[in-house]
């Protein structure tokens, strides 16, 4: 069953390249994947691991398995994939590339989350990156060549460092299998942890290696922005949780002050950068970078004390929530552009009058992303803050994690500032030239939004639906 989750989008993508009707196949494949994922996750027996030896020496296996964290990441991937194939506006005649790339990215992401072998974990992620570059470079908007190069260079740089870290770690454990991962000798931990933090960190746009993200998302075709910001970016966080904390907990503890400083770079520094954005898409791209800081905060809490029982559920829930909310925002931003012809905030205004349904959905997604209770992100954020304070002994001075948590909380104000400002200037106030004749979001365009918005509401009200996967 697990193999099917990868093969369905992969084969559909190849089929589209071979002449199958593009949009239809993509929709069918992503719907099928949601069904398979539901089935595989609802009965433990059907989600048995899968293993195929690819190379005997070194021993590399295409082995798949599902744990609590990867289950949640797979759910995230299949939901965002379905929304992504419905989103954006495919240029006339480019359907093959558009839909097959989207499915390739999805297959790569799902493969990475399901892999229980370090080699394939890495390789699937690289597989997903290639169509990402292609889509930005060929079908992107604005300064697409520059953006494509930038993301390529950055992520290749991150990937190489990551590879070095992974190889060094597996050299100590003597195996690529996740099941054999164990704490490596302390002497090597600092180096491995550093390589993993920089490597995974680049992929997650950890400050100061973040500046690829916003322009790439602004240039990227909508489904790519949704899948990369929503799903692929979680790869690095997943890697740090599943591999980094496993092989080098002492190393992570060693670099704790740095992690704290850098994550505050994401939250405060990039938060301020976000306030200064003049375009809706760049604002969203930067906000996504900023919110990575909160997930790193959970990782910092875990680094300070690997026995922190709140940190892992907090990180994973927030990864899920962020993935859904940012995908929704990118999807809606593309609708705004289609209806008004611009994403310059100064040229928008009063859109709620002419497009009330669009305004409602954007407002809901925006409120989710700034952590309004009742929507998924709040549940994740509040758990992260509790994780930050779980190891505080009253009466003693606060540690790195507590002080970081307090400073990070100011980000809640920062994110409200940029989101409400953008909303006020785009959707409220009097109508302007670009918006006075704008039509509302079409029923067909509502499909991805409703999928994602309902997910945000359900998880926000009843987070157990996601957290249950982590309980055993």
């Amino acid at each position, binding site marked *: 069953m697990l193999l099917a989750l990868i093969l369905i989008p992969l084969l559909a993508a190849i089929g589209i390249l071979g002449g199958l009707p593009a949009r239809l196949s993509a929709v069918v494949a992503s719907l099928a994947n949601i069904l398979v994922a539901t089935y595989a996750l609802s009965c433990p027996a059907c989600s048995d691991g899968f293993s195929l030896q690819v190379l005997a020496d070194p021993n590399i296996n295409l082995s798949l398995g599902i744990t609590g964290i990867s289950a949640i990441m797979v759910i995230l991937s299949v939901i965002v994939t379905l929304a992504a194939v419905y989103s954006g506006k495919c240029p006339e005649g480019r359907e093959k590339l558009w839909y097959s790339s989207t499915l390739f990215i999805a297959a790569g992401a799902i493969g990475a989350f399901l892999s229980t072998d370090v080699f394939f974990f890495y390789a699937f992620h690289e597989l997903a990156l290639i169509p990402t570059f292609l889509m930005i470079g060929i079908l992107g908007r604005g300064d697409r060549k520059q953006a*494509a190069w930038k993301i390529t260079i950055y992520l290749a740089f991150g990937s190489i460092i990551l590879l070095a870290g992974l190889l060094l770690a597996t050299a100590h454990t003597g195996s690529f299998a996740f099941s054999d991962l164990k704490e490596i000798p302390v002497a090597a931990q600092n180096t491995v942890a550093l390589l993993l933090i920089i490597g995974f960190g680049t992929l997650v746009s950890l400050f100061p290696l973040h500046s*690829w993200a916003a322009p790439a998302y602004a240039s990227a075709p909508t489904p790519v922005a949704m899948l990369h910001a929503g799903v692929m970016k979680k790869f690095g966080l997943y890697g740090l949780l599943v591999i980094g904390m496993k092989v080098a907990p002492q190393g992570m503890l060693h670099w704790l002050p740095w992690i704290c400083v850098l994550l505050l770079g994401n939250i405060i520094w990039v938060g301020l950068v976000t306030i*200064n954005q003049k375009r809706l898409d760049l604002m969203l791209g930067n906000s996504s970078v900023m919110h990575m800081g909160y997930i790193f905060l959970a990782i910092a809490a875990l680094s300070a004390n690997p026995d922190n029982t709140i940190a892992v559920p907090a990180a994973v829930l927030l990864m899920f929530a962020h993935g859904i909310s940012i995908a929704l925002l990118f999807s809606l931003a593309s609708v705004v552009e289609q209806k008004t012809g611009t994403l310059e905030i100064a040229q928008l205004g009063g859109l709620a*009058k002419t497009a009330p349904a669009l305004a409602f959905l954007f407002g809901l997604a925006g409120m989710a992303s700034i952590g309004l209770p009742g929507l998924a992100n709040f549940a994740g954020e509040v758990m992260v803050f509790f994780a930050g304070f*779980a190891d505080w002994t009253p009466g003693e001075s606060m540690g790195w994690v507590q002080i970081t948590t307090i400073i990070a909380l100011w980000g809640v104000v920062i994110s409200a500032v940029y989101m409400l400002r953008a909303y006020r200037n785009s959707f409220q*106030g009097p109508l302007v030239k670009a918006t006075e004749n704008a039509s509302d979001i079409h029923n067909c365009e509502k499909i991805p939004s409703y999928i994602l918005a309902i997910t945000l509401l359900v998880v926000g009200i009843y987070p*157990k639906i996601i957290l249950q996967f982590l309980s055993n």
Partner: protein
Amino acid sequence: MNPWLLLILPITSAVIIHLGLKRSATASALLSSLCVIATLIVSFSLLGSDASVVALDWINISGLNLEIGLELDQLSKGMMIVVTGIGVLVHVFSLGYMKDDEAKARYFGCLSLFMFSMTGIVLASNFIMMFIFWELVGLSSYLLIGHWYHKDSAADAAKKAFLTNRIGDFGFMIGILMLWGIMGTVVFAEMDGSQFSSLCTCLTGMVVLLIFCGAVGKSAQLPLHVWLPDAMEGPTPVSALIHAATMVAAGVYMMARLFLSLGITPDTAELIGSAPQVIAWIGGITSLFAALMATQQNDIKKILAYSTLSQLGYMVMAVGLVAPEAGMFHLFTHAWFKALLFLGSGAVIYACHHEQDIWKMGGLLKKMPITAITFLIGTMALTAVPFTAGFYSKEGILHAAHHQPLFWVAAFVALLTTFYMFRLFIVAFLGKAREHGSKEASEVSLIMSVPLVILAVMSFAAPHISAIFPVPSSWSLEFDVMPHFDDPVFWTSIGAFLIGAVLAFTIYSGKDKDPLSIPLFRNKFYFDEIYAWIIKIFQDALAAIVHFLDAFLINTLLVGGLTRSATGIGNFFRRYAQSGSLSGYAFLMAVGVLLVIYFTVFASK
């Protein structure tokens, strides 16, 4: 009746209105109003009964258990009567006031959402649940202030309210986390103030003050008071319900809940160090500043808004004087008469064709007698005329402050209150009509005047219905119906009233424009200007600088160098491979990555 209905009914109404009923404004209005009437009945049925409910898990993982439960004691039950009682009257009044609004359905949907959120704050059994609903009332307030979002002023006011509250919530959340660290729980019933005894009062006082930050935002205390006057951009019934009677009082309610849960009494107040004094002074200064600002405003709603700030300051001061029973009692009486004054101002605004400047009104006593007389009753209650509701509760606060410097602040504020309220009444209701809006004014329809009459009755009756006081029995709330003539506090209060009233009559009787001009008060001590400057310098300029540094240093120098060298390699490959297509580069990159993997794996063996 099942207490959960109190939450289920309004949220159901909000959801149904949003999903389907939006097309039918009348049905939406009726549904929303029926739901709030039903919640009032449920709230009454809870009085006296000792209903308890099982809490539901919201997040339950190892190390963290957050639940949704209901705390049903006299504090919350009494508060529910205030919320649903005024809620019913405001809904009914809105049926008239918002009759011709084009977004009536959205308005009533948001009112239902507000009722849901406010009920959640009142009934919350723990701090996280309270925080959840705390933010949700913020959302409903944002939506209702921005009801006419196509007006720039309304959209700006809504945003300002939300952001200012967020600043308060920043401290509130830190406080909750630290309290959790100390108590090991966020549930009110499981808290134990004696856990504080082993800790430095610098820490415990800090925790209380951080939690108080939430109240500073929500109850609009200095220095976060600036959003409340702007919030008057919302429809007037909303101002009555949310920005006068219920939501803005939530900060006081929350502090009362905190003191009750921790068992803070005058005897145990030393556990939290000097935090109470700080709270009391913030409340006292707010009440003074707001009263001074109110004396020079011309917009009828703005005067009432500053008055609300000032009265909230009184309540906060009472909490800080470790007399939360006095604060809660004033909250209770104030809710009725301030809702009356706001709805009265709504009736006036409605009758004068949306004129809000009191200097353009005048002579309304003859034209709208019911509104005018009920407004006068509200004014008397607010200015603490003996035997009105406000008299008893203000006495309580003055008694709590007696023998302290804050007593004189409170007494002076009482004088100012009488002054600006009679100024309002004289200018708007007495004399001659000044402009055509007030000349054409006539009494409002029954659906709007009946709520005024009921609230006017409550402005007298409220202190005599002790069953609905939001004051737990463990706090002793004592007052006598007859004033004590040998009590200096009583005479101070009467003196303040008389001086204020005489001054107002002397200065304003028969005047057509304001003879006083005090720019400092009229311009609200320039808080808005100072904050605008701070935001410009410390937020927007800093954001621009950081953005520049981000683009220049990190992007151009640090990473740009990397990119340029890599582009050079790319150019080399392009010339070498002559492929000319991006997919060619991607292929080369994939091959490169595979080669790297192959060699590294090989080399490591």
